[in-house]
């Protein structure tokens, strides 16, 4: 223990407290930075130099203090929980949003929906049954029928537009995921380099965690930490980020709505080997893929293609049932009625549904042998609206089914979002900066700094006594 070692001890404290104060300053500066994880200077006392030799003796207290580490106070379990819940919340959220949009697009149960237009059509048939001799009621019937066809086509087109938008969104989200993965790989590289040089890479880790959470929300990523501090990101069980290397995803498969309704699906594959599916299990992209899926047996396919299939079925059902009756009837001129509704060749039934003729005189409502102005077949067609297997019943069943599935999708998404929010709240509670706490720390470090300075001046005075006032007796 040398005479001056006390100065060194005080100096070590001055340096350490100043560094700790700087960390506090960094915390306060980032109190509102998104993704910032609070840090703490880890101080540890320096032991006295002990040489394990034969005549070594203890030479007093330790040599002061030092900042051994700037700790990043995160909790890996909370981080993992946030990622998992984000993945499932984004998956369900994407499905719920698509379902809600589809539900809004069908325009029921408003007074202007398809259900109303169908009842208008049946009423128009009844009017023709009442007055088969009036061309005006026949003309109204043709217009009403054309309006029903237009409406079904509009519904189909809306589903197609929504599909195309979801497809475009999928492609851009996959692009975003690729960028995030590349950035994570780059950060991995930089973090390793910084830590190898002995510095703190806490801020880079904050950025990396933010990106991993974003990636989880997009494609449902999970992570694995390597021994050197780099993290691997796994998507569907395969590595998307392997240390400082990143792999890209790509979107293949159905490019248009007609491909999807024809049974082709949209796939997310590995860009390096497009025959291998990424097998996404969570995240917004997986949710969109399930929305984009082709129709499947039992109505379990993608909601948009299933809706389109329902529209096709409805159009076919409407045309078949009306045509079956119309074909048996006679026009006023006594000619057989033929088809009332026709389909444009080469288009989906819902898009191609039109009235087969524009001449009101060709509407056939008379029963054979019952007189030219008989309207009994118009009445029969008008009764289709109340038939249990009629188009109205089919449409109502579709609307209710969509309502139920949307309701359940929204409530599942809400529950998942609540879980995510609570996980995120716990993470924020763990990592965010508390200004009160930092103020207290600031106070403590400041006081410690003052104390160390006081120790230094005390030693200085002691040395002053020793050097300047010793041996001057009688001078």
């Amino acid at each position, binding site marked *: 223990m040398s005479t001056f070692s006390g100065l060194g001890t005080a100096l070590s404290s001055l340096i350490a407290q100043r560094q700790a104060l700087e960390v506090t300053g960094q915390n306060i500066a980032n109190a509102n930075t998104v993704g910032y994880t609070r840090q703490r200077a880890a101080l540890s006392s320096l032991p006295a130099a002990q040489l394990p030799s034969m005549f070594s003796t203890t030479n007093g207290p330790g040599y002061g203090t030092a900042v051994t580490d700037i700790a990043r106070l995160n909790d890996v379990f909370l981080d993992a929980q946030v990622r998992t819940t984000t993945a499932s919340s984004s998956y369900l959220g994407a499905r719920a949003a698509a379902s809600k949009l589809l539900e809004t697009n069908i325009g029921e149960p408003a007074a202007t929906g398809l259900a109303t237009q169908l009842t208008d059509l049946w009423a128009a048939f*009844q009017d023709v049954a009442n007055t088969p*001799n009036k061309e005006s009621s026949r003309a109204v019937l043709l217009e009403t029928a054309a309006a029903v066809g237009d409406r079904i086509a509009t519904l189909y087109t809306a589903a197609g537009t929504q599909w195309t938008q979801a497809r475009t969104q999928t492609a851009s989200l996959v692009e975003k995921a690729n960028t995030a993965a590349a950035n994570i790989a780059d950060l991995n590289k930089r973090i390793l380099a910084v830590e190898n040089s002995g510095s703190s890479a806490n801020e880079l880790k904050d950025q990396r965690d933010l990106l991993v959470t974003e990636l989880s929300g997009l494609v449902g990523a999970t992570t694995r930490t390597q021994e050197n501090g780099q993290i691997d990101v796994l998507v569907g069980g395969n590595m998307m980020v392997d240390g400082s290397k990143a792999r890209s995803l790509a979107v293949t498969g159905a490019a248009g709505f007609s491909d999807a309704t024809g049974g082709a699906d949209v796939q997310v594959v590995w860009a390096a080997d497009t025959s291998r599916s990424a097998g996404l299990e969570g995240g917004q992209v997986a949710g969109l893929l399930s929305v984009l899926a082709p129709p499947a047996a039992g109505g379990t396919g993608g909601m948009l293609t299933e809706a389109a299939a329902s529209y096709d079925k409805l159009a076919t059902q409407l045309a078949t049932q009306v045509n079956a009756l119309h074909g048996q009837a006679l026009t006023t001129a006594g000619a057989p009625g033929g088809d009332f509704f026709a389909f444009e060749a080469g288009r989906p039934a819902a898009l191609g549904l039109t009235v087969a003729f524009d001449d009101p005189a060709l509407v056939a409502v008379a029963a054979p042998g019952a*007189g030219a102005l008989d309207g009994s077949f118009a009445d029969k067609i008008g009764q289709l609206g109340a038939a249990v297997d009629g188009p109205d019943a089919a449409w*109502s069943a579709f609307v*209710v089914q969509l309502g139920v599935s949307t309701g359940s999708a929204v409530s599942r998404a809400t529950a998942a979002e609540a879980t995510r929010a609570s996980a995120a709240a716990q993470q924020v509670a*763990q990592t*965010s900066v508390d200004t009160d706490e930092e103020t207290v720390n600031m106070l403590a470090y400041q006081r410690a700094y003052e104390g160390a300075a006081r120790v230094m001046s005390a030693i200085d005075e002691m040395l002053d006594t020793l050097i300047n006032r010793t041996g001057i007796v009688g001078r």
Partner: protein
Amino acid sequence: MINRVTHQSVQRSTLANLQLNLSTMADLQAKMSSGKKINVPSDDPAGASDMLRLRGEQRVQNQYKRNADDGNAWLTTIDSALQTSSTTLRRVRDLVVQSGSGAMNTPAREAIAVEIEGLRDELLQQANTTYLGRTVFAGTSDAGVAFTVDSTTTPPTYSFTGAGSATVERRVADATTIRVDADGAKIYGDGAQSVFALLDTIAATLRTPGGDATAQLNTLDSRFETVLTELAAVGARQTRVINAQTNLAESAQTTKTQLSAIEDIDLAEIILQLGMQEVAYQGALGAAAKVLQPSLMDYLR
């Protein structure tokens, strides 16, 4: 797990709660301003299905009402035509009976014959009565008249244009149709058997010196009877139409009430909820202002 609480976590949870309060309030206000409980099917799928069904029923009832009104007009037209026909036939009978008295001389019989011919034309006109361009006694015919007259022959030939057993029906309920025309061939007879041919025969008999027209009285009476029977039948059918109209008006009211119960909001309830929500929101705002204000900085020198 007991959470660490920081200014940021308090701020976030306060914000989340305020957001929740505000969105509940927006929801209530949307209901209040639209006046509807169900705006999309997922609001209440079962209710939405009922709404679709009731709206459909409303439209159908509306159409049935139109059908019934139209049927009523047809039957009223037939009724008045038949009333006039029965009066005409009664006048014919009177004339025939009058002609039977031995005091009639040839000019007088001629005068009766002319009047009977006039009455025949009247009757023919009544048989050809139309409603909105449709002959009510040959409902599904498009000939424009129920009976055509071929005057080139002597006596003229009358033929009914109606098609067999085809009737004109109006649907007034899901399972009920009511016949709104009348069978002209049955009432007035067809061809040589028709009441017009009968009147021609009577006129011819009257012009024949010594002819006895009263021999036709039985046939005339049976025609008269037929008209009266049909008149009663038409009256009965009209009663059914009127009953159907009453029923439709009642069920329209019921449907409206049911629909309103499903889709319309309970105003008092919503206003109360909105009031409570406003209090909650204001409370949350006040709490936020209190919680976020203090900091340790305020208490340190």
